[in-house]
């Protein structure tokens, strides 16, 4: 929890409060690059924040960066700042640096100055526009070298955005349950409703902890030394998404099923983000295989030792 983090977090939250909302998110889904917002983000030096000072950054740590990405996710991440920050942490470069998956797809690829590809190198690529399902965010495709160099960073970015999105969905649902009245009282006063929201709150808290834990692990041991924690964060945020989105839509009932109301902006993004850079199964298999190979007797000592000095 550095001072730098608090400053950046405040800047990002202020920007998002002013410039993110249903209109911005709708424009994103229509493929309109949020140029004004990105200009402000760049003016603050945010995309390069994680780069070392000699490369123009402030060497923001991964643990602090995760907090910024959670804030972005809370607002539906209208700009690919998290991706650009993570890319620049690995290969510092000016402008918007997109982060490609091993298959050559990248969020906002067509708007990128460069793209960090699976081979761990920066490229300039011609992207064919595409759309992520079901968020309609621009997931563009280019012929890029394959490889796993971006997978851990991308998984952490998306897990962090999900932790924020999950918070937003819970907040919306609690607020709605407090104002929507049926049978003469707010529906949140019915135990059948409040218990669902309590369960969702547990999942949201777990998601936040899993993501913070992964950020701390990367800050301490680097991306490859934090594979377990990143995998766990992607699994937990993915599992939480299934539960929390289900509760949110049940609590909101018909209005949440419409485009007239803004719940869908976040739930659809959560459903897209959980597939980006490896879904729950991908990451669970990876850490499960490793643990099974180590054997049952090692499982607890391995887990317990992860943060011991």
């Amino acid at each position, binding site marked *: *929890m550095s001072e730098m983090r608090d400053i950046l977090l405040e800047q990002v939250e202020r920007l998002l409060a002013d410039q993110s909302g249903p209109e911005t998110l709708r424009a994103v889904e229509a493929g309109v690059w949020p140029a004004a917002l990105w200009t402000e983000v760049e003016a603050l030096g945010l995309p390069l924040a994680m780069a070392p000072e000699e490369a123009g950054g402030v060497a923001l740590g991964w643990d602090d960066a995760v907090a910024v990405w959670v804030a972005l996710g809370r607002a539906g991440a209208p700009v690919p700042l998290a991706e650009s920050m993570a890319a620049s942490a690995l290969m510092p470069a000016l402008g918007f640096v997109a982060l490609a998956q091993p298959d050559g797809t990248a969020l906002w690829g067509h708007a990128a100055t460069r793209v960090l590809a699976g081979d761990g190198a920066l490229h300039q690529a011609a992207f064919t526009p595409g759309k992520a399902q079901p968020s309609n965010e621009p997931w563009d495709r280019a012929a890029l070298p394959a490889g796993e160099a971006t997978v851990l960073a991308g998984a952490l970015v998306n897990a962090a955005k999900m932790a924020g999105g999950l*918070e937003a969905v*819970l*907040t919306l649902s*609690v607020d709605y*349950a*407090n104002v929507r009245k049926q049978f003469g009282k*707010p529906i*949140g*006063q019915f*135990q059948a*409703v*409040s*218990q669902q*929201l*309590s*369960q969702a*709150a*547990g*999942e*949201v*808290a*777990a998601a*936040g*902890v*899993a993501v*913070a*834990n992964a950020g*701390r692990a990367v800050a301490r041991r680097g991306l490859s030394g934090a594979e*377990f*924690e990143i*995998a*766990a964060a992607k*699994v*937990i945020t993915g*599992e939480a998404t299934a539960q929390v989105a289900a509760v949110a839509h049940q609590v909101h009932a018909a209005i949440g099923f419409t485009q007239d109301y803004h719940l869908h902006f976040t739930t659809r993004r959560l459903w897209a983000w959980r597939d980006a850079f490896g879904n*729950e*199964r991908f*990451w*669970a*298999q*990876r*850490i*499960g*295989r490793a*643990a*099974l190979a180590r*054997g*049952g*007797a090692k*499982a*607890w*000592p391995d*887990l*317990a*030792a*992860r*943060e*011991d*000095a």
Partner: protein
Amino acid sequence: MVGLRFDLRDTPPEAPALRAELRAFLAEAGRHWSPRIRAYSWMAFDRDFSREVGKRGWIGMTWPATYGGGERSFLERYVTLEEMLAVGAPVGAHWIGDRQSGPLILRLGTEEQRREFIPRIVSGELAFAIGLSEPDSGSDLASLRTRAEKVPGGYRLNGRKVWTTNAHRCDFAITLLRTSPAPDPKLKHQGLTQLLVDLRASGIEIRPILDLAGEEGFNEITFDNVFVPDSLLIGVEGKGWEQATSELAFERSGPERYLSSLPLLTAAMDSLAEEPAAPEAVGRMLARASTLRQMSLSVAGMLQDGEAPAREAALVKDVGNDFEQALPDRIRALYAGPMPDDVAEMQTTMNMVARSYSLRGGTREILRGIIARQLGLR
């Protein structure tokens, strides 16, 4: 923002050395623990084991040295608890005293009570039970009716407590009783008092109740004109509700709220290599266990800082209970054929015992009610 904050904590610098010491001890002590004993773990009562634990300074680790405590940190205590639970050690004989009764006596007891009880809890000699539930008072605890009537020099108890874990094997029970009638049905939390009851006092009858797995885990206690001296009043007469519910923060905060089933996962892993669904399932369970561990550590850190994380503890217990309760079935679902004998014994026992995880220490519904209030609902 709604929801609760869980700041990450580090394990203490002493952790590696402490773990090594604990593991060496547990490997030796645990040579003859059956899978069934490991499945019960913190509900399994083994006084000899608890005395050995006490001898090594692992009970009352955070308590003042004046009373025999170890004056170590909450996080060192946390490391000790998780090492014990991870192997399913039968810690039931000292669990309640270490977790709840000792801290309560230290916080609210008289100097005389502290000197009388704390050193003997620390040594593993005294085992405590908690007398809360009654036949007609479960989740609606404040409706309890067992009376403690003021008489010269003490109180006279009449009534019944039920589901009191290991009472027939314990020495004392911190018991919540009605000392004066509620002034109004809506003010039933008033007039309750906590007394330290000697379970061998005359007029007490303890009837073990067989649980569904065949163990005498809990009991019904009948009080028939039982005399309890004034010297065994805990805290303030009439303030029992506030005292007992603050104790629940301790009860709900520990790693037993997510680790109870872990010994089954680790025991099963070596026979799952050929099962195709195993890597994903094991990965998901380890991801949960790791996350719950960080949440639980966070709560231990709040206790270390002198906070009273009652709502955070309720949330971690609720999420943890879901995980540990589902685990036995998730393990079973991974085997196409029969489970190896050891795994089967633990799985079938744990599957039954796991029903109690979301009941004891506050039902799932009560916990979610606490979380709902925190969210600003109701």
